[in-house]
């Protein structure tokens, strides 16, 4: 079976425990999550959960069907790569020393990321982009010594006049 990475967007009613319900379904059915984010949406009745995961077609369809069975879940959609924008943000703290500084600065420049903190011994890079870009940057700076890192996980939105909430229109 072909394992692929894909992103699912879920629109859920703003009810207590809804994140637990969604997360618990993944745990109970043995599906692994690569990243999960929850955020506010344009409508305060709903929150949006974005999950990125890896699996084959049968896992993907099973996940979507199980999600649709949960009460408080309004919409579930696989965000297709060519029809949506994916973004993720990472904060990466690196050693700040004269030997590697130039290398870090040029990596930051090439990846169009930016330095958001600079101290005598450390510097912190903020990088935004698709997961593949962030991973390429991490691979590049890893030999220079990553002291600490955190990532938001993927968020995704449809391109053009297509919306997660099927009731939304232009």
């Amino acid at each position: 079976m072909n394992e692929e990475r894909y992103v699912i967007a879920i629109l859920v009613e703003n009810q207590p425990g809804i994140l637990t319900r969604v997360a618990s379904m993944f745990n109970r059915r043995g599906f692994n999550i690569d990243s999960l984010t929850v955020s506010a949406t344009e409508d305060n009745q709903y929150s949006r959960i974005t999950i990125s995961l890896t699996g084959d077609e049968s896992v993907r369809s099973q996940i979507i069907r199980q999600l649709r069975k949960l009460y408080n879940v309004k919409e579930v959609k696989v965000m297709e790569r060519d029809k949506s924008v994916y973004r993720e943000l990472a904060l990466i703290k690196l050693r700040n020393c004269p030997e590697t500084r130039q290398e870090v600065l040029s990596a930051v420049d090439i990846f169009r990321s930016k330095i958001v903190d600079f101290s005598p011994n450390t510097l912190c890079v903020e990088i935004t982009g698709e997961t593949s870009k962030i991973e390429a940057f991490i691979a590049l700076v890893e030999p220079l010594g990553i002291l600490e890192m955190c990532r938001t996980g993927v968020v995704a939105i449809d391109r053009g006049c297509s919306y997660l909430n099927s009731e939304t229109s232009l």
Partner: protein
Amino acid sequence: MILTGADIVVETLIEQGTKTVFGYPGGQVINLYDALYTRSDRIEHVLTAHEQGAAHAADGYARATGEVGVCIATSGPGATNLVTGIATAMLDSIPLVAITGNVPNSLIGKDSFQEVDITGVTLPITKHNFLVKSIDKLADTIREAFAIAKSGRPGPVLVDIPKDVQVATFPYEPSLVVEKKLPKPAKHDKLKAAVQMIAESQKPYIYFGGGAVSADISEEIIALADKIDAPIGCTMMGLSLIPVKNPRFLGMEGMHGHYASSVGQDEADLIITIGARFSDRATGNVAKYARRAKIIHIDGDRAELNKNINVDLGISCNIKNALQRLLPLIGETKHPEWMARIEELKREEQEQFEKVTAKDRITPYALIQEVAKHTNPDTPIVTDVGQHQMWVAQYYPFEVPRTFISSGGLGTMGFGLGAAIGAAKATGKKTVLFTGDGSFGMNLNELATAVTENSPLVIIIMNNKVLGMVRQWQTLFFQKHYSNTDLHTRKTDFVKLADAFGMKGYRVNELSEMESVISQAFNENCPVLVDVAIYEDEFVLPMLPPGGSIEEIITERSDQS
């Protein structure tokens, strides 16, 4: 009308058609019990011995009727005692509403006395659950709980109500019974694809499960089988939907299924699956399951399609509607060779049965046949879990839908007595409980409930003084290491036990006594228990070893000569 929360709960239950609730009082449901007290002319409460018994009773009530069963427990231990019962209902898709009290909102999260996060605990074993934090949502939440429990694929819903919500007051407006939402009708092109596959099949096999019982489609299944000249098999959860005497019916397939049913399914070239979920107990080794067949899967739950088995055509829909629309689209066909093969398999099955079934002792088969002489077609037949359950599933001559009441998916030992009390209450009919000495030992405290209610139960204990099903596996797969399955050291006298609970008990030790004692037991108009001694090494046969395929089917004992 301004009412307290507790009153609103009970009024809403009555409004939603609840006639009987099963439960146990406690600190955080005192208000609720007061509301039940003042409405005892409109709603009956059955006090069980333990909350688990209440959950199983509500479940048995629901299985016997298709109505939503309701149980009530207090916070903390009361609520956690419901857990096994709720999980049992979840795995078998039984509509259940469980109502629990909780500590007041102000004490939630402080590890207060008898506080448990029961919505957290039951999250994976309920279809949905609610914590009602304010009284303005109380009535609508209970209505929604009923709607969820009975709509689509049914299941249990828990409503947790903090004490302060029961005490508060709010206007109550009566409402209508909530509608049961059915799955959407099948798409026409899917049905046409099914017609095509049926037309191409030479060896069709119809296979149904608990979803078919829930959708009440015995007539449609028989009509389909007659029209396409196919045999019918089922899962354990499907039992009682099709009369056993129907010549097309081969019985349950799977781990302890009938030989003809399991082998017939394996040899089929098309399996028309209706409301079944391909559980591991039904399929064995999935890689070898139904290798020769195309599979059509018609189910009310879309998530069941391609979950356990990949199918050739999945139709997620209202299954009754789908079958009713499918029938006129298919032509009448005959498959004489296939049906002759099925007859041959039935003969082989009969020969195997004759070979392994003793005549000179009380066999489970003989006992079940003896009991069946005294029952009516609509007598609820309840079981616990283990060997006795499989024997009843294999041998009892079911005729009427919903007369077989048994814990399938979860396999809950201790389910039977509570469920039998619930089924008897729901139907008002004499109800038979087949149990084993192991299962019965788990929740026999509910005899107290049966006596209080004067439930018309005939409890048949198949007493082999061992945990027979596990022992069977130990015999076959663990070199007869009978680890903790021998109950001979227990000196429980079930007849004295019956007496202690204030009911009648009988004992059958010899085959010669069986007929008269069973007959006596059925003449009683009160709960009665019959302790029947059976051979400790009686096997459930045939058996597909767990994860095995049809070639590995065990049809006779090889460990004995």
